[in-house]
C-alpha cells in the first residue's frame, strides 16, 4: 500500500482510459462478431485487463512483451490502437497485419509487443530468447510473457522457466489464472493448487499469487520483478488471479461455470476496481465521467473507421513470407 501511495493521479487517469478502451474494444469485437463483421474466432480478454494495464505500467517503452491468442488487451496496452485491432479482426487493410494475422496474432512490434501466439506455451521460450538477447546486447530491457493457467502443463513452460532460471535472465512470466483451461476447470487437470506459482519452487523461484483484477496490485508486483530482473537477479513467476467475462472463444457460452461464479467476479470487475481507486484518490466524479466519455468516443470512432476501411488487397496473401517481402520458393 505504501508503494501505491506514490501513484500520480495523471497515471491513474491514463490507466483508467486505457482499461476502458480495451474493455470497449472487446465488447465491440463481440458485437461485430455477432453481426457478421468478424470471421473466424476471437478469444476475448474482458475481465483480464488489469493484468495488461498494470504490467504495462511497470515497464519501459522498449521492454519486450509476448502474448497468447487471448491477447487483444496486451497488444493494446503496449500501444496498438483500438482501430488497428478491430480492423485486423475485420480483415482490413488498416489492420495490424493487413488481415494475415487476425485476432489470435495481434502484434505491435514498434512497441516491442512481439506478437500473440496460438500454440499454447510456444512464446514462453521466445520470451526467454528476447531476455537472453537483452543480456547479449547489454540493453537493460526486460521481457514479459503472459500466458494462461492452461499453459502451465505443457513442456515448453517448464523448459522456458528452467533455462531462464539457470541463465538468470531478465524475464517475467505472468500467468493469467482465470480458473479454466478452455472449458475444463484448471484444478481438475493440475496436480497443484496454483498452476504457475506452485511450480516456481522447482526452479528455485518464489511463489507469488496476487489479485489480478487490481491494476495497482499488478503494477506493484511486476515493478518488483522488473527491478529484480534489471539488476541481474533473474526471472520471476507471478500468478494473477482473474476471470474471463465471456466464454473461452466466440462459440463458447461458458455453461460449465457454476451458477453465481461470474456474478461474484463481476463485483471485482477490474474496471470497477480501478474506478474505485480514482474515487479514493479524490478525482472528482465529473472528471471520471469525462474519461469514460472520451474512451467511449475512441472506441466508437475505431469501430466506424475499421468498418469503413477497405479489405486488404488479395495480393497481400503472397507477401511477407520471406525477407524480400515476397513468397517465391523456386525459380
Amino acid at each position: 500500500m505504501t508503494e501505491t501511495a506514490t501513484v500520480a493521479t495523471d497515471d491513474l487517469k491514463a490507466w483508467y482510459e486505457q482499461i476502458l478502451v480495451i474493455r470497449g474494444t472487446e465488447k465491440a469485437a463481440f458485437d461485430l462478431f455477432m453481426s457478421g463483421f468478424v470471421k473466424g474466432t476471437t478469444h476475448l480478454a474482458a475481465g483480464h485487463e488489469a493484468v495488461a494495464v498494470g504490467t504495462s505500467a511497470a515497464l519501459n517503452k522498449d521492454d519486450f512483451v509476448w502474448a497468447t491468442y487471448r491477447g487483444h488487451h496486451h497488444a493494446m496496452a503496449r500501444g496498438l490502437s483500438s482501430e488497428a485491432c478491430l480492423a485486423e479482426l475485420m480483415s482490413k487493410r488498416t489492420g495490424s497485419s493487413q488481415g494475415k494475422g487476425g485476432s489470435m496474432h495481434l502484434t505491435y512490434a514498434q512497441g516491442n509487443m512481439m506478437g500473440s501466439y496460438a500454440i499454447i506455451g510456444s512464446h514462453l521460450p521466445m520470451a526467454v530468447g528476447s531476455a537472453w538477447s537483452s543480456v547479449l546486447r547489454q540493453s537493460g530491457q526486460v521481457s514479459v510473457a503472459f500466458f494462461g493457467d492452461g499453459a502451465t502443463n505443457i513442456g515448453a513452460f517448464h523448459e522456458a522457466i528452467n533455462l531462464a532460471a539457470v541463465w538468470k535472465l531478465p524475464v517475467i512470466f505472468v500467468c493469467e489464472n482465470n480458473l479454466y483451461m478452455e472449458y475444463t476447470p484448471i484444478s481438475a487437470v493440475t496436480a497443484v493448487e496454483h498452476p504457475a506459482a506452485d511450480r516456481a519452487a522447482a526452479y528455485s523461484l518464489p511463489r507469488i499469487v496476487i489479485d489480478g483484477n487490481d491494476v495497482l496490485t499488478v503494477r506493484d508486483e511486476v515493478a518488483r520483478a522488473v527491478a529484480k530482473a534489471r539488476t541481474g537477479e533473474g526471472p520471476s513467476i507471478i500468478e494473477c488471479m482473474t476471470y474471463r467475462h465471456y466464454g473461452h472463444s466466440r462459440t463458447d457460452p461458458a455453461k460449465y461455470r457454476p451458477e453465481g461464479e461470474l456474478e461474484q467476479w463481476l463485483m471485482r470487475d477490474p474496471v470497477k476496481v480501478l474506478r474505485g481507486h480514482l474515487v479514493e484518490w479524490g478525482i472528482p466524479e465529473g472528471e471520471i465521467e469525462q474519461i469514460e466519455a472520451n474512451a467511449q468516443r475512441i472506441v466508437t470512432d475505431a469501430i466506424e473507421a475499421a468498418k469503413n476501411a477497405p479489405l486488404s488487397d488479395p495480393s497481400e496473401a503472397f507477401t511477407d513470407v520471406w525477407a524480400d517481402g515476397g513468397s517465391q520458393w523456386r525459380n
Partner: protein
Amino acid sequence: MAELITYRDAVSEGIAREMRRDPSVVCIGEDIGAAGGVFKTSQGLYDEFGPTRVWDTPISEQAIVGAAMGAAMSGVRPVAEIMFSDFLACCWDFIANEMPKVRYMTGGQVKVPLVVRTANGGGLGFGAQHSQAVENWALTVPGLVIAAPSTPADVVGLMASAIRSDDPVLFFEHKALFATKGEPAPEGHVVPFGQANVVRAGSDITLVGLAWSMPVIVEAAEQLASLGISSEVIDLRTLVPLDVATVLASVAKTSRILIVEENPFQGGWGGTLASIVADEGFYDLDAPVKRLAAASVPLPFATHLEDEVLPSVAKAVAIAVAMVND
C-alpha cells in the same frame, strides 16, 4: 593445391568466419561449448569466442530453438544446434509453426534471422532414432530455407549465406560426410541460396542429388561413363529456394532424369521436383522421371540392413542404365 579440409572442420570454420565478421552472431546448443559438440563441429569456437558467444544448454530442444528464435527477433543472430536431426521432432512446433510463420502473421512486422543446424542422415549405424534423413519434413513447411551442403567449401559458403540471411534457415549437415575431405573455401566465400551446382556435364541422363546422395551419384556417373553413358550431375545445395531452372535446362539437354534422395520415397523431396519436371519439362523427356530414395521403412541398425534401405551407387547405375537403354 591448398591442403584439403574435412566437412566437419568446415562447419566450425564457416561459423567462426561469421562470428569474426559480425559480433551479433552467437551459438546455442547442447555440449557445443567446452566439449566442442558431440560431432566436434563447434571445435574451437568456445576457445576463440568464449562463453558470452557460445552457450551450452540443457537437453531442452524447445528452449533451445524457442529462445534462439526470440533472440533472433530481438537483435541478435543465433546459430542453434539440434544435435541429431531426428530431435527436430522435439521442437517441431517451433520449426513448423513459429519460425516460418511469424513474419507472415505479423504482416512483416518482425524478422527471424535464425539458423538451426543439425546432423542429418544415416550410414553410420545409429539406428532408427538417430539416423533419419528428414530434410523432407522441412519441405512441407512454407517459410523455411533448407540448405544441405555436400562439400566442405559449400558448408562454409552456405553457412555464410545462412547466418547473413534475415530468413529462418534449417541447415542440414550430414553425419556420414563429416569425415570426408575437400578443397577449403577461399576467404570471403559465399554460396548464394537457390543456385544448384552442375558438378559434371553430360548428355544422356541428368542425375540430381543433395548432400549425402552427391557422392553416390558422382560415383554412379563414373561407372556409367565406363559403360558409355554420359551423365550430367547436379547438386541442388538448397531445397528452398529450389533451383528448378538448372534442372530443367539439364533435362532439355539429356531428356532423362534420375533423382537420388536419402529421405524415404514416401513423402520425399524428389516427389516435388519430379512433379515439376513432369509438368514443365514434359516435352523434353524421353523416359519417365525416376526417383531413387530410401525405402519407406524406419532406418534399421545393422549395416547390411541399412544398405538394403538406403540408395546406393549400384542401384543408381542399374536404374540409369535401364532408362538409357529402354
